[in-house]
C-alpha cells in the first residue's frame, strides 16, 4: 500500500508504472483521478485534514479492500491545501490479476474517500468562502458496500 496526503501534485504515469510492478502478475490497473470542477464560478477549493487520523482511517479501508478482493497493489494520493479548478485532487490506483477486482476495489475506495475520509472542504466563490456540508447522496454511494 502506498498512501500519501500531500500538497504537491502527482504524476499518473509514474504511479501506474509503480503499480504495474515487474513480476508479470498484474493484468489490470484501475485508476481514478478526481479533478476540481469549476462549477458555479468556483474560484478555489481548500482541503484540510486531520494528520495521523486521515492516514489511519484510509489505511483501514485499504486493508478492508485487500480482504475483499485479491489485490496486487493499491496507491492512494490525496492532495490538501488550496486547489484551483482543473487541478488534480485525488488518485486511486488498484492493481490486480483481473479487471473485476481492480474496478470494484477502486470504486469502493473512491466512495469511501469522497464521503467519509477525514477531510473538510472550503469553497471559494465570488460571493464568499463557505465550508462544504456533508452530502447525503455521497453517503448512499458509500453505504452500498455495507450491504
Amino acid at each position, binding site marked *: 500500500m502506498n498512501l500519501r496526503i500531500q500538497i504537491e501534485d502527482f504524476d499518473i504515469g509514474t504511479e501506474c508504472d509503480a503499480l504495474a510492478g515487474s513480476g508479470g502478475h498484474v493484468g489490470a490497473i484501475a485508476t481514478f483521478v*478526481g479533478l476540481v470542477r469549476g462549477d458555479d464560478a468556483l474560484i478555489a477549493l481548500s*482541503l*484540510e485534514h*486531520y494528520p*495521523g*487520523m486521515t492516514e*489511519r482511517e484510509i489505511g483501514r479501508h485499504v486493508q478492508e479492500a485487500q480482504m475483499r478482493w485479491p489485490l496486487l497493489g493499491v496507491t492512494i494520493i*490525496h492532495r490538501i491545501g488550496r486547489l484551483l479548478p482543473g487541478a488534480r*485532487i*485525488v488518485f486511486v490506483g488498484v492493481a490486480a490479476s483481473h479487471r473485476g477486482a481492480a474496478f470494484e476495489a477502486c470504486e469502493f475506495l473512491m466512495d469511501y*474517500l*469522497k*464521503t*467519509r*475520509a*477525514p*477531510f*473538510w*472542504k*472550503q469553497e471559494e466563490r465570488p460571493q464568499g468562502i463557505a*465550508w*462544504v*456540508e*456533508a*452530502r447525503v447522496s*455521497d453517503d448512499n454511494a458509500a453505504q452500498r458496500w455495507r450491504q
Partner: protein
Amino acid sequence: MKLLYFAWVRQKIGRGDEEMKRAPGVTTIAGLMSSLRERGGGYAEAFAEPARLRAARNREHVPFDTPVCDDDEIAFFPPVTGG
C-alpha cells in the same frame, strides 16, 4: 490533554490545537464540550450546537459519552465531507 480543532471549529476558536489540563469534573467528551463552551467567545460559538459537531479520541471517532483521560488527544470538527 491535547485538543485539536478542524474546519469552522478551528476558525471560530481561532486556533488549531492547544494543551489543556483536565478539570476534575470533566470525565467525558460531553463534559469537556460544556467546559469549553463556558469559556465564552469563539468557544461558546463553536460548541453552541453539539449536533453540528463530531469528536475523536486518540484519532478514533467516538460518541460524546466517551470517557476522557489526562493524556488523551481529543479532536472536535464538523461532520467530514470527504475528499
